[in-house]
């Protein structure tokens, strides 16, 4: 009887195994590397994300504004202050009339928002600490829309001269590191204006 020598691996077997291992290794490596790449990309903030969120918040405040004789709309190029109906911290879930102010600080490049509710003002614990709502702003300009009876048309004003709220407000924002062409402009109607 002839004994077949079969202890050990032939070259062909070795080649097949190494090819299979390399294919599997490549597949595992590439999926892992791809996963890492996706993770990295998803974790970096999308440019302009904060601006979109800020405008959503801002329009919510403008929708909550009310025309009041004792609580007027103030507006200049870098400051806007108006009355809002908002949840009161002192009165629990009840809403009360308060005041919201947006102020642009050019040297810091930030826009801050502060909210104060009137029950707090009377007690003297005015909760008015401004919070940063937007950073990295190189330039910001607010303007106010109204009908000008003398000119017989609608105009944008840099400074709001009346007590009532304007028909609309506009914000033009240039982020740090952006050119003049990349100015983002958003306008918002004020629902209670004109009433």
């Amino acid at each position, binding site marked *: 009887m002839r004994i077949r020598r079969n202890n050990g691996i032939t070259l062909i077997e070795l080649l097949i195994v190494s090819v299979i291992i390399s294919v599997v290794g490549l597949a595992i490596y590439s999926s892992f590397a791809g996963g890492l790449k996706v993770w990295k990309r998803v974790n970096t903030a999308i*440019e*302009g994300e904060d601006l979109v969120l800020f405008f959503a918040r801002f329009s919510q405040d403008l929708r909550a504004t009310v025309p009041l004789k004792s609580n007027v709309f103030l507006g200049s190029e870098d400051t806007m202050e108006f009355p809002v109906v908002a949840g009161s911290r002192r009165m629990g879930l009840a809403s009360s009339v308060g005041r919201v102010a947006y102020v642009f600080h050019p040297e810091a490049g930030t826009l801050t928002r502060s909210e104060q509710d009137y029950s707090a003002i009377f007690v003297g614990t005015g909760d008015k600490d401004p919070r940063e709502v937007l950073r990295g702003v190189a330039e910001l300009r607010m303007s106010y829309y109204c009908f000008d009876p003398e000119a017989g048309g609608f105009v944008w004003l840099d400074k709001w001269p009346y007590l009532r709220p304007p028909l609309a407000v506009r914000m033009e924002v240039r982020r740090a590191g952006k050119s003049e062409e990349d100015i983002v402009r958003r306008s918002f109607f004020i629902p209670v204006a004109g009433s």
Partner: protein
Amino acid sequence: MMKKKARGFTLLEVLAATAVLSVGTLYMYQSYFSVLRAFDYCSGYIASSNFLQEKLWEGVDSVRREGGLGSPVSGDFTAGGRQFVWNMALGKASDRVYEVTVAVDWKSGKQEIELSRTAYASYENPTE
């Protein structure tokens, strides 16, 4: 008693294992691509959002003042390193209520994406 020599893997077993692994990898890839697509859609949405909303405002304002859209009603713009095409349309919801629709189109890979927003505006004819 016959002793079966069966130590180690046969080629067939290794092949079957590879096939199972590759099916797994395929699903991993699919989820990877769908995450990428969702992310791309999201960044396109954010890049065009402010422009779209501002155009919608302009359209509503124009309808309120003049009862019609100003010109132009379509065009293109670049935002966040992407090319967008926009167009605005006017419809009538009732006698005096108009429907302003702004649509923004962009390409995400091979896909064409369209995002549209509608707002209502009323017009009181001052001569009536």
